[in-house]
């Protein structure tokens, strides 16, 4: 019966086994893959994605979507810069010349406010979450275009905008010859750890699973589901703004399309990491696995000099493959629920 023990362990941690396999594959394929620079790059790229995925995971666990986070990301970064820099070209500044730290607090609050509006529309306005966040995705991106008239902002590595560069680029610590860990990576690690603790060990997180698993039963258990849903959107909005701060710093400029198209990768990472789109299932650790896997694949394909024209096709296929494997996992597990019933009768009679 050893099979009965080993297979569930593999199924439960499938994402990590796949990640290991992908790592080995790329290491064999490219001598540049398993190097200090490359690993540092994978982690840095994973950092922004990771922050967004944590926010999305909270929302997904309640059985909702937040498609708007990539636009929140862009708009928050833009607004942050506008608050900080002088009103001269080429920078898109408002001339407010606000204290950079205060500006960061404001854009995080703005992210939370956007989330709150979405949450109110969904819970009090009884609107469909998919449509509300899709509309918000368009509105926020549109605002960004309207405000900048398509102009980009650069020079985020010079004061006073270098608070962006600091989060996006600064190295926190380095293990010489092994890996350089940026502040962004440390921050994302902290966000993941906090997310994990909240989901597993706080009443808040535990209630989210109940809401996603069976909302009516959660309400009948005394949970204020509407309040919780507003709160998860606020978390998602705040983390999206945080991601904007990080991503703008990483690329050292703000284009009007900052973050555009990111939401697909965010959803893919969450789902590959085992977060159910139906809600109620999934863990932060799994989501982390999904983030690392997608970032690794992205980097690996680049190193293998796969044509940029084909990369999206390959990414799509990989997501599909991951979903196929996941579907098989569900299928493998399904009969075990049947098996549990006869077993249970045995315990009844043992009395």
């Amino acid at each position: 019966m050893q099979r009965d023990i080993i297979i569930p362990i593999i199924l439960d941690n499938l994402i990590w086994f796949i990640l290991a396999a992908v790592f080995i594959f790329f290491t064999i394929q490219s001598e540049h893959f398993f190097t200090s620079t490359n690993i540092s790059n994978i982690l840095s790229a994973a950092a922004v994605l990771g922050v967004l995925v944590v926010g999305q995971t909270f929302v997904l666990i309640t059985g909702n979507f937040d498609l708007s986070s990539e636009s929140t990301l862009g708009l928050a970064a833009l607004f942050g810069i506008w608050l900080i820099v002088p009103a001269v070209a080429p920078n898109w500044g408002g001339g407010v010349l606000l204290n950079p730290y205060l500006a960061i607090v404001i854009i995080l609050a703005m992210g939370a406010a956007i989330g709150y509006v979405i949450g109110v529309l969904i819970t009090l306005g009884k609107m469909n979450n998919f449509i509300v966040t899709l509309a918000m995705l368009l509105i926020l991106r549109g605002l960004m275009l309207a405000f900048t008239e398509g102009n980009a902002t650069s020079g985020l590595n010079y004061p006073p905008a270098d608070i962006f560069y600091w989060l996006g680029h600064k190295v926190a610590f380095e293990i010489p010859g092994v890996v350089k860990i940026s502040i962004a990576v440390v921050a994302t690690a902290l966000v993941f750890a906090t997310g994990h603790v909240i989901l597993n060990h706080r009443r808040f997180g535990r209630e989210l699973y109940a809401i996603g698993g069976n909302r009516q039963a959660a309400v009948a258990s005394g949970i204020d589901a509407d309040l919780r849903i507003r709160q998860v959107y606020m978390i998602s909005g705040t983390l999206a703004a945080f991601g904007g701060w990080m991503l703008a710093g990483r690329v050292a400029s703000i284009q009007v399309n900052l973050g555009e198209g990111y939401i697909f990768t965010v959803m893919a990472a969450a789902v590959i990491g085992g977060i159910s789109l139906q809600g109620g299932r999934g863990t932060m650790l799994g989501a982390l696995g999904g983030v690392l896997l997608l970032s690794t694949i992205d980097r690996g394909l680049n190193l293998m000099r796969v044509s940029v024209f084909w990369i999206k096709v390959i990414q799509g296929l990989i997501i599909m493959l991951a979903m196929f494997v996941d579907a098989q996992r569900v299928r493998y597990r399904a009969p075990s629920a049947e098996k549990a019933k006869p077993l249970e009768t045995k315990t009844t009679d043992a009395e």
Partner: protein
Amino acid sequence: MGDGNPHLAVEMRNITKVFPGVRALDNVSFNVKAGEVHALAGKNGAGKSTLMHILTGLYPYDSGELLIRGKAFGKLNTATAKAVGIALVAQHTKIIPGLSIAENVFAGNLALSRYGFVEWKKIYKEATERLAKFGLDLDVRRLMETTSVAERQMIEIARALFANASVVILDEPTAPLPKHDVAKLFEFVRRQKAQGSSFIYISHYLEEIFEVADRVTVLRNGEVTGSSAIKDVTQTNLIHMISGVNVERYRRLPTKPGLPVLEIKGLTRSNAYHDINLTIYAGEVVGLTGLEGSGPGSLARGLFGLEPLGSGKVLIDGKAYDHGDPSKALRQRLAYLPRDRHGLGIVASRSVRDNVSLSVLAKLQNSLGLVNGKNERKLVGDYIDVLGIKTPSMETAIENLSGGNQQKAVVAKLAATEPRVLLLDEPTQGVDVQAKVELLRIVDELSKRGVAVGVVSDELSELIDICDRILVFYRGSIIKEFRKDTETITTAKLLAAIEGEISEKSDAA
């Protein structure tokens, strides 16, 4: 072994089915004659579902023989099973609510004209005729969602029968049905039986088995523990065959009630209940019964905040009750066990632990705001022990437990909130005989801790066993109170009151 008997619609001989580690069916023989209703009884997990899955071709069997109308089927897949006339009508019918009855009757095989357009006239006419053949007179243009649960079930059985089903498996068909519709369904089944169709009837309600079945076969732990004509068994020996022990009725001893806990004065909600005055005392169990829709269920849901409450006065322990949502009710120590366990009671995919502690997570948080795992496991473990919840572990997903154990876990969740008022809506629905008795014992024990308990139910004999008083609702009003301390309550007296007859005799008693 020889040839099959052609008079038998289904014959299963010495069927054995082994799942890894479990012998789900051991040498089970079971047959169904043409034109009979054969009941299949047994606890959850006794092997009924596995046996039916084999008959419908979902599972292969390991050894034995399976004959359908005398023809042996070594391997049966779902398509073949359907083709040879086996149909399953599940508890939750497979209808499409947004389509018309006619479209559901044809299940997607709509007649098309030469140009590929749907021929509605023809479809409506044929659907009406087909249903009429089964004695169903319905407007087939109506949307399926406007039909009653009983109508849906009859439509689904009819649908199976036109697909040439000769054996229809009815899996707990009456569980979602209001009482008065059960009779309609049975009438329908009897009529189809007279036409030569066979039925396999699976139910936890023993009274129903006696009412509708011709024969009964009982499974326990994958073995047949008895099979006979229904006229040769009594309810007592049927229970014995099902559970293997003599399950006795749980009778609560009379108790002396304490102070009033729940007081309702002049409560009215239009189209639900009217001028309700009732008091439940500490340590008292009060039954609330009546026809479907007569008020007790709405009253319980209204009090808990799942529905509006209406106007009137409600007090808990002498304090005005502030009506709101369920979280507000729980804070004021009023708890409610929902009738719909899957819809409102459990979060199926989560563990027993998560389900039991769900309403008290705030109390389990430490000063850092983290749920104290040790305290949580102790709380849940204690309830598992005290209520006798049978589960491999508290981390098992609750969906893997039997109905009775799921229900006990829901009771544990409510008990953990330490309620003063506990309202139970059909607490024994869909659980097996033994679990029913255990649930009644749990209710009794909670009341002994001073909880005021209200039980909404149409299981009259259970109400008589467990309640100190039974209040009968009729069209939204309480029309009769039965007190155990002053009279012997019988189901006959209750039924008369439920139907709205206020008999002189029981008034005098």
